[in-house]
Structure formats: C-alpha cells, structure tokens
C-alpha cells in the first residue's frame, strides 16, 4: 500500500464521518438525504481502494443512486409533513 493511497483513504474516511454527521444532525430533510447519498459515494470509493470493485459498483449504483431517489420520491409525496 503506497503512501499516497493511505493518505487518500485517511482523507476519505474523515470526509465519510463528516458527511454522516451532516446527515444525522441536519434539520433540513433534503440536506440529510443528500448527505446520506454522499456517505454512500465515499464508501464506494473506499471499497475500490480496499480491492473490492464488485462491491464498489453495487454501492455506487444502488446505495448512492437508487436509494437517494427513493427518498426524494417519498419526500415529494409527504408535502407539508416533513417539518414535524
């Protein structure tokens, strides 16, 4: 494992925890959903560095793409209820 890759994975892990903090603590629901999508995207980068390209592809397509849109579709259906 080269030094550059170690440094990159360290930066990605810090960003991962930061994005998760935003996803948990944000009071605005669209912000939280986008931050959760960002967590998935960074995790998929991390899977690629950890030599798991199959899992990285699945996480990017399913965890980051489809899940975010499922959340937004439901958010569009519950207009007015998201501020409770």
């Amino acid at each position, binding site marked *: 494992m080269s030094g550059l890759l170690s440094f990159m994975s360290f930066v990605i892990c810090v960003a991962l925890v930061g994005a998760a903090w935003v996803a948990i603590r944000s009071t605005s629901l669209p912000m939280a959903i986008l931050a959760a999508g960002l967590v998935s995207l960074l995790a998929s980068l991390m899977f690629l560095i950890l030599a798991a*390209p*199959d899992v*990285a*592809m699945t996480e990017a*397509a*399913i965890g980051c793409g489809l899940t975010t*849109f*499922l959340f937004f579709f439901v958010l*569009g*259906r519950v207009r007015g209820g998201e501020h409770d």
Partner: protein
Amino acid sequence: MTKRIFVFGMLIGLGAIFIDLLLSYTPDSALNQTARYYAERTATDLGAANIVAAVIVTYRGLDTLGEVTVLFLTAAILVMVLYRDHGIGINKIPNRFLPPTGEMLGTGSRLLVPLILLMGVYLFANGHLTPGGGFQGGAIIASAVLLLLLTNPNQTFNLQLFSLTESISGIGFVVIGVLGMFFAGGFLDNRIFPIGQLGELFSAGAIPVIYTLIGLKVGAEFSSILVHLSEEKEES
C-alpha cells in the same frame, strides 16, 4: 431527559465494545480454508475468472435465490401498501401541472437511455470475467427507467411487461438450478453447459445465463419499485 441519558449510555457501551474490537484486531496473513478452496478451485472447476461471481452464482447460489425472492417480496408488499384503498392500478392525476422539462434533460435522456441500457447489459453479460454482474447491471437498467421518469413524470410504463420479465426470469433461474440436479453435480451447478476457455465470453457454463436472468429480474423489480413510489396518487 432520562431518554437522552439512556441513549448516551447505550452508545458509550457499544462504543467501548467497538474500541475493544478495534484494538484487538489483527489482519490475517493468509487466506483461510474456505477462501483458499475458492481461490484454487474456481478456475479449474467452474471456469469463471471473477471469483466473487462464482461464489454468488454457484457456490452460494441458494443464498442468491433467497435474495432475489426477498427483492420480489419487497416489490409486491410495496404495491400492496401503497394501493390498499384503490386496488392495484394506475390512478394518477391525468395532467397534473408540472414545470416543463428542460431541453437539455429531454435531449440528454434520448441520447443516454440506450447507452445506459447497453451498459447494464454489458455488465451482466460479462459478470463472470470483469467486475459487475446481475445486481449491478439490473440497478443500472433501473436507472435508465429513472431517467425516463425524471424527463416526463406523467409517462406511463407498461407494468405488465415488468412483471412478465420478472416472472419469466425467476422461473428460468429455478429451472436452470433444477437442470443442474439432473445433468451436473447438484442444484444450481453451472456445469450443465461446457465450461470453455477461461477468460472468454462464452465460458463458465451457466454463470452468464444465470447472471443475465438475475439482471433482468433485478432490473424489472427496481424499475417497478421506482415507478410505484414516484406515481402521484389521487387524494381520496
């Protein structure tokens, strides 16, 4: 307030367990016995270059059959929950007001949808050689449907086609598994077709066939989940 204290106490306890696990973690230096078996025997026995695909489709194929069943149940229960009052059917408001779709999205989707579909098919047809496979390819096919849905939210999809694709590929998956019991070593054995040369497209026996069926099934299921969740229902 007591609830907060309770929550923090629980999290601190769990965190202590995690820190203990983290400090006592020592990475393996060699593969364990199961992984060694997979690494040594996959290429000679099954002829698949992607060992993860071989584990998913053949060695643990029954798990995958269960997983696909769980996805099918999810899609079915979702329709049941969303349409409990009206019965199954499309009952959206015919021409609800929407801001017009931008020129860029319309043209872009006409250009991109065939390419995205091709990418999905490529992924699951080459699942035994390169990273990728049925689940990834299916999700990418569903994202093509998602792009169509974003371009024109009032679009009606042929839901019959989705459920027909899903049923046929599910039945095909089980039939190929049962054929393995008669012509090869057991349920879901991939050696019912010739194994061929390692690294070629038509190799690895039934793995590309099963992965194609899984890809079609997963794509149809995710597409129907997306279409049902995005549909606006008439308030009754």
